[in-house]
């Protein structure tokens, strides 16, 4: 048996660097998240090296918790996570099963356990993503079946670590409270990753990619208008980062379509261009001068 292991080569062979680079390229911002994913990747490679040298160790616990405001990319990263863990050989199949409370908790006594187990079985060999996990625990109702689901989850998370990875996701404050009331669960989740809000610059970058993905382009003025839009929208309630951005773009597309229909005759360039006026027409701009205005300017 060799005494030394070439970590660099092992990393290259697993093609993890490709996935990580892809992650860097395709996801804007999210610095702490990317750092943590790199660390986990390194850990798994080192673990493999140890195994190659004959040092046995228990498989690391990779259950994670993603916290962050809405629209910060938790689900997107979870999808990537499944793929990364698969490439690293930590999970065998690399599929993602995304569930919420409804998929785990039953309607009546004796319904919850089979339901939760069913989901767990489906997720084995891959990643189980529990969105808005705090809904599992409802302290106001002591007969709530959520607790039962949590107990089964904990058992499987502990005993079948090599079979599946569980990722909890939700808003920061509510997740913290959820873990406080379920200390057993908290101690079984090794990685708590916080997703920061996007800065205006990052959101604009994301906008460019979204528009590109739709086969459209932003006119020069439109991009500036969008930047202004974002800085105003951010101060209003219910701001959901990339999701708000997506909605704004969708509405701009609507306005663009109406404008084109009214114009009657169009060429290829105008069909694919979102003009400044399409964005300026948003209600967000009306509300801006009177920021004290309490109306829920969601649009």
């Amino acid at each position, binding site marked *: 048996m060799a005494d030394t292991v070439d970590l660099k080569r092992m990393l290259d062979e697993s093609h993890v660097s490709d996935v990580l680079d892809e992650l860097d390229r395709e996801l804007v911002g999210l610095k702490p998240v990317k750092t943590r994913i790199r660390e986990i990747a390194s850990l798994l490679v080192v673990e493999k090296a140890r195994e190659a040298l004959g040092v046995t160790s228990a498989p690391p616990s990779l259950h994670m918790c993603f916290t962050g405001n809405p629209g910060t990319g938790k689900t997107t990263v979870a999808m990537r996570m499944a793929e990364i863990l698969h490439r690293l050989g930590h999970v065998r*199949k690399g*599929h993602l099963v995304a569930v919420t409370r409804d998929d785990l908790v039953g309607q009546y006594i004796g319904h919850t356990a089979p339901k939760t*187990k069913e989901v767990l079985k*489906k997720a084995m*060999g891959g990643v189980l993503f529990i969105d808005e996990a705090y809904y599992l625990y409802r302290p106001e109702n002591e007969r709530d079946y959520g607790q039962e689901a949590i107990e089964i989850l904990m058992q499987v998370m502990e005993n*079948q670590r090599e079979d599946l990875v569980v990722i909890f996701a939700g808003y920061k404050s509510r997740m913290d409270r959820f873990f406080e009331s379920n200390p057993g669960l908290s101690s079984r989740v090794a990685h708590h990753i916080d997703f920061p809000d996007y800065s205006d610059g990052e959101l604009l970058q994301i906008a460019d990619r979204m528009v590109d993905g739709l086969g459209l382009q932003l006119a020069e003025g439109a991009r500036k208008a969008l930047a202004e839009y974002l800085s105003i929208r951010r101060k209003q309630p219910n701001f959901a980062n990339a999701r708000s951005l997506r909605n704004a773009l969708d509405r701009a597309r609507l306005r663009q379509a109406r404008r084109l229909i009214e114009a009657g005759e169009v060429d290829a360039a105008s069909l694919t261009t979102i003009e400044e006026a399409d964005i300026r027409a948003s209600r967000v701009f009306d509300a801006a001068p009177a920021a004290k205005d309490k109306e829920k300017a969601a649009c």
Partner: protein
Amino acid sequence: MRITQGTFSFLPDLTDEQIAKQVEYALDQGWAVSIEHTDDPHPRNTYWEMWGMPMFDLKDAAGLMTELKECRKVFPDRYIKVNAFDSTLGFETMRLSFIVDRPAREPEFNLRRTDTSGRNIRYELETVRS
């Protein structure tokens, strides 16, 4: 008497690892696996009791192995088999079925002869549990 029913039954008992690999193969073919158990392995007893629902949408053998472990715990002295059902048009039937667990002491079969009308003889197999 050692019961030989289904695939692999003339081989030594499969280890868990081997079972998992067979299940893995079945899942790769897109078959749905399920677990059944019985205390009466009579060859004409085709309907064994189901252990839960057939596991559709399973991606990995670990799911079935978990259930199998559970089933063994509850029924340590029963026959347990794993079935793989192919739902594609034209098959719509079991493609693979093999015994994964058997009791330590297996039942015997008695062959019973009965005279019936016109000097005919009827043969019957009867499970004898000792």
